[in-house]
């Protein structure tokens, strides 16, 4: 318990410390968006669960099964990379306007930016005029260029992409190769250092020789597949280093219609995807658990009412319920513009609302499952015995029923994640997804799909969005499969 409190305390301190450092150094105003607060709550929840589970064997065993599976661990590492970017992108603030700083009342820019924006300011600020393909040095569309001899129609040079090259036609290939090699070398060195440290740490932990540990890792002769974890980590590190190497000089994934860096947009969309995947189930979890367990435990009219509610809600086609709710919200926002200080706050409300509505559509399934499971548990001997001893309803539910339905909650939450991320893209296409000003893969696809008609096609925005989404969803699917196998008693674990 002591360790539990201290870890959570440390987390809060780190968070507060991080914010205050930024605020102090940039003279900015902290902005807590609704989704930020929920994300932080979620992180707190997960960390407390982690600490709590460490002392409980029955919780630890299934997780050990998950951690033993190479594919699941590889997926987890990729997921963590996404989460890392998403969390950096969840601490928001507004910088103050320089010109009016000496006045009594400070005013702030309308831009709400995050730590992630600060870290990637090179990407964010390198805005071109319009489309340019990946690693391009020239614009994708023809323009009138003014030269010494007069005006010519042609493809103008990019302001930032390949701006350091004198003769881009000849130098570009060489420059890219050199940068690739430098990036790979830097990345490999970093990766080798991390590998060495990990193995050293493992050896110390096991009180083993360093050499023996290397052998164990290489032969995958271990409890946790360190080899796979390090390899996945290595791939991520190499890609990251390559991108960093290029990000200064080129637009790695090209630019979009208004000249924004596609890589930046795709990275910014990570947060939206994660928010929709996690907060959606989180927002509705309390209702689903409370109603489902209550319906199963009490039966009678409570059961009738709960069943009526979820049958009604699930009988409305999901997309249409979302559409109806979002349309209503749009009218509300349009009529009450004074409620929102910045565009981001308005967009954030819509994101939160979308999560809630998506939650309502996915909530009913979980509620039904929990009701069925509780009905089963209610008849078991130990619950009957508790009842016979005169134990109260609250205590029976919290002590005997809730802990035994938690695995269903976990499985549903993890399984829902990937379908929710995919749903966001479809909803944005329909026009009832996130706010158009929010960065999301759905919005990227939606704005880029019309460009497929161009000749030659503008493919990079689409491909970037699809690849980012695909990697996240695939890792989530692989990880959730392992979690389901581990926690579902119906699946035999010997397979």
């Amino acid at each position: 318990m002591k360790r539990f409190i201290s870890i959570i305390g440390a987390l809060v301190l780190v968070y507060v410390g991080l914010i205050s450092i930024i605020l102090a150094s940039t003279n900015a105003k902290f902005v807590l968006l609704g989704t930020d607060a929920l994300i932080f709550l979620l992180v707190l929840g997960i960390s407390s669960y982690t600490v709590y589970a460490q002392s409980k064997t029955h919780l630890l065993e299934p997780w050990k099964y998950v951690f033993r599976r190479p594919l699941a661990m590889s997926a987890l590492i990729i997921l963590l990379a996404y989460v890392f970017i998403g969390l950096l992108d969840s601490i928001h603030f507004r910088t103050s306007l320089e010109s009016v700083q000496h006045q009594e009342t400070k005013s702030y820019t309308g831009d709400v930016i995050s730590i992630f924006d600060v870290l990637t300011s090179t990407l964010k600020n390198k805005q071109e005029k319009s489309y340019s393909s990946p690693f391009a040095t020239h614009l994708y569309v023809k323009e009138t260029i003014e030269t010494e001899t007069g005006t010519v129609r042609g493809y103008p040079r990019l302001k930032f992409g390949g701006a350091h090259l004198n003769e881009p036609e000849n130098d570009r290939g060489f420059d890219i190769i050199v940068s690739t090699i430098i990036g790979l070398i830097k990345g490999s060195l970093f990766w080798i250092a991390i590998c060495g440290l990990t193995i050293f740490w493992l050896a110390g932990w096991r009180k083993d020789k360093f050499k023996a540990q290397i052998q164990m890792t290489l032969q995958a002769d271990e409890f946790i597949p360190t080899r796979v974890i390090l390899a996945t980590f290595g791939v991520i590190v190499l890609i990251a280093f390559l991108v960093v190497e290029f990000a200064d000089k080129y637009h790695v994934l090209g630019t979009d219609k208004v000249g924004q860096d596609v890589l930046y947009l795709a990275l910014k969309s990570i947060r939206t995807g994660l928010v929709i995947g996690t907060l959606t189930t989180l927002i509705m979890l309390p209702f689903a658990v409370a109603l489902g367990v209550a319906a199963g435990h009490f039966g009678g009219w409570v059961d009738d009412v709960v069943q009526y509610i979820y049958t009604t809600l699930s009988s409305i086609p999901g997309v249409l319920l979302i559409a109806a709710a979002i349309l209503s919200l749009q009218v509300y926002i349009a009529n009450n513009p004074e409620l929102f200080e910045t565009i981001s706050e308005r967009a954030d409300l819509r994101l939160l609302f979308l999560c809630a509505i998506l939650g309502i559509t996915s909530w009913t399934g979980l509620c039904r499952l929990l009701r069925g499971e509780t009905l089963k548990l209610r008849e078991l001997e130990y619950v009957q015995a508790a009842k016979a001893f005169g134990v109260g309803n609250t205590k029976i539910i919290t002590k005997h029923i809730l802990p035994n339905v938690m695995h269903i909650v976990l499985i549903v939450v993890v399984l829902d994640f990937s379908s929710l991320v995919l749903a966001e893209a479809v909803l944005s296409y329909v026009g009832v997804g996130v706010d158009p000003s929010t960065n999301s893969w759905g919005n990227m696809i939606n704005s880029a799909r019309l460009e497929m008609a161009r000749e030659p096609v503008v493919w990079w925005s689409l491909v970037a969005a699809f690849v980012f989404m695909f990697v996240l969803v695939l890792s989530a699917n692989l990880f959730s499969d392992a979690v389901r196998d581990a926690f579902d008693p119906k699946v035999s674990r010997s397979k």
Partner: protein
Amino acid sequence: MFAYITRRVLYAVPILFGVNLITFILFFVVNSPDDMARMHLGMRYITQEAVDNWKQTHGYDKPLLYNSAPKQGNALSDTIFYQKSVKLFVFDFGSADDGRNINYDISQRMWPSLAIAVPVLIIGLLLNITFAMIIAFFRATYIDYTGVVICVILMSISSLFYIIGGQYLISKLLHIVPISGFDVSATASIKFLILPVIIGIIGGVGAGTRWYRTIFIEEINKDYVRTARAKGLMERKVLFKHVLRNALVPILTGVVAVIPLLFMGSLIIESFFGIPGLGSYTIDAIRSQDFAIVRSMVFLGSVLYIVGLILTDISYTLVDPRIRLG
């Protein structure tokens, strides 16, 4: 049986009433008709007269629930709730914002939706069962493992990618079929329907195959299968004669549940391929913020969903003699 069906239909009434109430609250209470009018007329510089005028032409110029001074009918029927919500129960959807009759539109647009949804369902079902059988036949080998991983990969790809990629590859690069469009005559529209049907099938093959595989594997581990093997039947016979037949019970009843919803069509496929079905009708309505159509589609969808539930229960009794409806 008849008594059971009657009871189920009667149960559906309060549920539909709930659906009706939710849509009523979403469309009329959260946002007053005045808000709707302003939104349609453009937000700024709108006089109250223009708003009243819009409300009158679209029939929203009535009190929500109770009319103290009714122009026609009585105090309860000359209200928005009666005119716009209660009338849905007799499938009188009224007219859209542009004055078209919604009932007529639905009856016209139903057929293109079915022309895509039915082949996707039937061919998809056959394909998924075949793949799942193959994977289940080779269970616990590398074929099984690879098959499942491929399914997971197919599931992880956004449906938008299948559509955009398919359109680009088949129609734009290879020029095999037109990118989008529709024709009234059945034979002429086949060339427009092939690609959306194929993409609809591919989009569902990953999830479908994996789901059916789970059902097959579950069935294979049952006692009667062991008995069948013990009496010396070939694996092929066990699989096709015993496992397939029993596994079809959950598969078919699951399919029955979605059959009524086929009428609603597929939202994105129809919209991408320009097929004038109910799916694209809904999307257009959402985009042009035509609340009357969205409301009608919500109600229609709920009715079809409940019909699907009732059909599922009935189909259980038909295919599985162990289940009797009391």
